[in-house]
Structures are given as C-alpha cells and as structure tokens.
C-alpha cells in the first residue's frame, strides 16, 4: 500500500506510537491497547494484505478505511463483532 494511504489510516484510527521512528503503531480503545500494526518506513511500501490482517478487517472494510467510508467508530464496532474488543477490555460488565 502507498505510504500516504497508511498515513491516512494512522490519522483516522488515531494510532499511537512512542517515538516517531517506531516500527509499530497500536490501536487503543478505552485506555487499552487492542492491536498492533506495522508502520511504513523509508520509501518502501508495506505489504497491504499483511497490514489488513493486522488490523483484522476484510478487503472491503480495509478499502473503506482508506477511502473514508468506514469511520473510527465503525471500525470499533467491527472489532467488537470479532470479539477483539470485549466488554472486559472496555471495562463494562
């Protein structure tokens, strides 16, 4: 995938890093880290299918994340549906 597409994803999902040079970025929800993905570095394009798998979405959902048709809230619902975000993680009983 193109570097600018990944930057778009990073901004939309508000992915966190500790340092600007980090190789990993993680998705947080309710104060907990939920999943990691690999950041692009240099001019090389990261493999799209592997980024998609790390974000736990299918091809349609991934295209939606890049094209703006899937929002961050919708992405959280996708992760809930896949039990990646659980009620325990959210602090709910």
């Amino acid at each position, binding site marked *: 995938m193109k570097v600018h597409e990944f930057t778009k994803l990073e901004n939309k999902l508000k992915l966190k890093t*500790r340092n600007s040079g*980090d*190789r*990993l970025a*993680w998705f947080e*929800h309710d*104060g*907990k*880290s*939920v*999943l*990691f993905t*690999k950041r692009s*570095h240099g001019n*090389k*394009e*990261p*493999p799209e299918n*592997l980024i998609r*798998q*790390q974000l736990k979405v299918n091809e349609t959902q991934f295209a939606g994340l890049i094209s703006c048709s899937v929002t961050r809230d919708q992405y959280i619902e996708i992760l809930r549906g896949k039990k*990646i*975000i*659980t009620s*325990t*993680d959210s602090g709910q009983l």
Partner: protein
Amino acid sequence: MPVLDLLVDARISPVAFALPLAPNTGWKPTTIVFPLDIQLGGLLDQDLFFHKPLPVRLYKSDGSYVGECSLLHQFGYGSDAAEALDDLGKTLSEMYFYLSDSKYADRLSESLSEQYDVLCGFIGRRNVAAPKAS
C-alpha cells in the same frame, strides 16, 4: 553469547554470498528458492535473547522481501532478505518492550495479552548487571 543468538540461516546471509569459492572444500553455492521457511534466532535488541528459534517464512511480495512470523502476526520487509529479517528483529524487540511495559501497567486487551504470552515463549530479557562500585 548463547549459540541461538548466532543462529540465523546462513543461506540468506549476505556474508554467505560474499564468501569466495574455496577450492577443494566441496562447498557449492546454494540457489535460494522462495518462499523459504527458516528458524530465526538472532537480530534482536542487545537486551533481549531467544529462548528458542522462531519460525519465520521469507518470501517476495510486490518487489520487496518479507519475513513473516504467523505465530506472532508480525512481519519485516525490505529490499533484500537480510533487510527484511533485520526489520523483523527490530519490530519484535519493539513489540516485546512495549507489551511488557503495558502488561505491568494493565493496559493490554485480552488478545494482546495472549500475544504477549506467546512472545515470551520465544523471547526473554537479559539480566543487566549493575556496574561494579570502584
């Protein structure tokens, strides 16, 4: 230094390619066929070490080389196999440090907590000796 830290399949090492053909040794260059399944046992941060080698698949994808560890859902990539493995090693090191810090701060989801347990089965942290008082 533990032997495992040195254990990276020599067939993908750029050093191996640079070795001259020594006469009468019987050594012949090996043709590498991708995808290649290897056991990664090095290239981590100096404060970390491998308990046991990590299964990694090396392959080409869209003009890049990718080293993928399906057990940990992580990968490294680069313009050659050595760069991809180096990137994977740095990624795993970063992952270990972040997950261990977050685990103690109770900031990991269930799924990442499970991933950390898998990671700890392969990677550990060296005991850093305190500097001797003079």
